[in-house]
């Protein structure tokens, strides 16, 4: 397997506050990486440095072996799926227009191709085709999340960034969405970065878990490794309640 994303001595500073002191990590292609940590630990910052939304204060990020400093950020972002907290759909666009947003950024001429992509992804995330003309305000919370996922995937990216996408939905819908996301991941084999502050979610979804605290890596490993041999006190505390019964 080759490397999808590599961080080399990444550093991020806001004014006098050091958010990420020195962050290095290699992520293989096809991993589902869940990033967990308490709020302010720098997990969102790391995520947003992958698609260049945040510029590193020092160090480098490589995507598919290329330093993103040398890449056209607009093209890079279009090739990376992006879904943020609550999925934030565009309220003035229909479901169809939302999902077609990234394909339409490239060009609007190949409408047939875009329509097929929209149909395909609506089907995959389990949205009824009759919802195409609806506006986000006319959808349930779960439907909105599904549109968010479809929108992030519509341009068939190889990497998908998700920042607490299911933060605002109820527990039942959340469970369903997690299951569906896992299925989509298994079907497409893309590399996923999934930020969460819920250890259940992190263990359930991730093939690799990245535990962060105060901008530093506490542990990077499979759910099994994290559960069986937590490396630091912080990880221990995080997985304490799973000692005896691993999550299903």
């Amino acid at each position: 397997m080759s490397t999808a994303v590599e961080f080399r001595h990444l550093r991020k500073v806001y004014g006098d506050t050091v958010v990420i002191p020195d962050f290095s990590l290699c992520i293989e292609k096809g991993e589902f990486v869940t990033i967990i940590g308490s709020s302010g630990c720098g997990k969102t910052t790391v995520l947003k440095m992958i698609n260049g939304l945040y510029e590193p204060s020092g160090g480098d990020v490589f995507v598919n072996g290329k330093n993103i400093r040398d890449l056209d950020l607009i093209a890079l972002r279009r090739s990376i799926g992006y879904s943020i907290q609550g999925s934030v759909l565009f309220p003035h666009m229909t479901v169809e227009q939302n999902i077609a947003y990234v394909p339409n950024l490239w060009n609007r001429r190949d409408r047939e191709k875009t329509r097929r992509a929209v149909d395909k992804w609506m089907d995959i995330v389990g949205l009824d085709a009759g919802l195409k003309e609806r506006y986000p305000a006319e959808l349930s919370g779960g439907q909105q999340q599904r549109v968010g996922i479809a929108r992030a995937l519509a341009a068939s990216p190889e990497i998908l960034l998700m920042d607490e996408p299911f933060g605002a939905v109820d527990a039942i819908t959340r469970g369903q969405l997690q299951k569906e996301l896992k299925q989509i991941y298994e079907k497409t084999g893309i590399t996923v970065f999934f930020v969460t502050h819920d250890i259940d979610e992190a263990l359930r979804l991730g093939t690799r878990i990245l535990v962060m605290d105060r901008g530093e890596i506490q542990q990077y490993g499979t759910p099994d490794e994290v559960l069986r041999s937590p490396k630091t006190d912080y990880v221990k505390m995080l997985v304490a309640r799973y000692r005896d019964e691993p999550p299903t």
Partner: protein
Amino acid sequence: MLKEIGSLLTGKWDFFGSLLLEHIEISTAAILIAIVFGGLTGILISEYRRTAKPTLSIVNFLYTIPSISMLGFLIPFSGIGNVTAVIALTIYALLPMVRNTYTGMTNVDPAILEAAKGMGSTELQRIIRIQLPLAMPVIMAGIRNMVTMTIALAGIASFIGAGGLGVAIYRGITTNNAAMTISGSFLIAVLALVVDFVLGFVEKRAGLRGRRARRQNRFMAVAAGILAVCVICAVVAPGHKDRVIHVATKPMTEQYILGEMLKAMIQQDTDLKVELTQGVGGGTSNIEPAMEKGEFDLYPEYTGTGWNMVLKRDGLYSEKEFDTLRNDYEKNLNLTWVGMYGFNDTFGIAVRGEIAEKYGLESCSNLKRVASQLVFGAEYDFFQRKDGYDMLCKTYGLKFRKTRDMDMGLKYQAISNGKVDIMPINTTDGQLAKADVTVLRDDLHMYPSYRCGNVVQMETLEKHPELRAVLRKFNGIITNEDMQKMNYQVETQKKEPAAVAKAFLKKKGLLR
């Protein structure tokens, strides 16, 4: 009053209709420019936040300039007429436009903008596809606000010779015709309300999201677009600019009448078309620069005014110097005087008829023996002016028993019921025609002569030689008494300047 307005509106619909159309043209131009320019400014300062504060301060400052002085500032740059009006209106329209665009753009949920950016939108795509549509409700509120304001404000554009319904208002004020003023104001209000309603409708339709509503919207948008194109074509189409004579008049009743006379005669005797801009605010000080720029071809002027205000000569003008006056005009300004009407609109001193008879008063010099028994009344201003009360007393060595301040509009009433005995007048005052007063001869030539005649572009006369013949027909046809009577008919009897002008020309056998 209501009935009067109603019959005025229906009876003179041609007049009001064309003003209304012009009003719409001027406002639309300003509104469109403001939407584009103000919108762009709003977007730019929302992108470059550091420039927002200074920009908004400047726009705010411009907004606080009183409209009359704004027009005054602009005249030296853009002259008189519609262009200046559009510029001024645009400047005022900028504030609501810039501010609302800025507010709307900056209030869009930052999470949405970050999502757009994170998905790979360019700055332009983010602005056009996401930020602008979401800011639209706030921008639209600004547009509605601005449109209503612009339509209302366009009413003062006539002050600088632009068209629009302000012409009716201004004419109503200068010819003492309240119904005319109210009709103009009423139409402006109606126009503003209708446009606001239409915009509200558009806003509501745009907010509808059903599939059918959207199809209907598309249909209505196309229909509105076609209608707009037709209207623009109809408005822009008529050309033949060089066959049009542009005539200006000052905001005085007698000039409105003269303007109508000129229009009627020129259009009868030649195949030229006359574009009449009545009652340009500020009179000579605004018309004269416009003449020099070639925006007007001719206007009625007074010799004394030309001498002092235009040629800037010192000293008292008398008609002996008319040749010098005309030569200087031709040499320095490329303008000339053709067609001297005959009347002299100068200042004068009038006494009640019975007093003139009792003491045998004919000239101001005669006053010396009786002044100490007379009450002198005048508007407040007259007692302050350099060439007012003090000059009169000094020139003729007079000392009146008493002086009294009066309202200008009431002075003829005051003299006829004996509140005052003697007062300053203008020699063509309409009320002179009916009042029982005697105008005393200014035998020491205290006041300059103000004979009325047409100031014309020499270039226009070369291009259309037939014009000179028409203007010459006006030589000496109107006496002071004639002018007084015509002013009286318009100001007091509420007749139309055009009707009065035509009736007079017919009586003189000039108009068929």
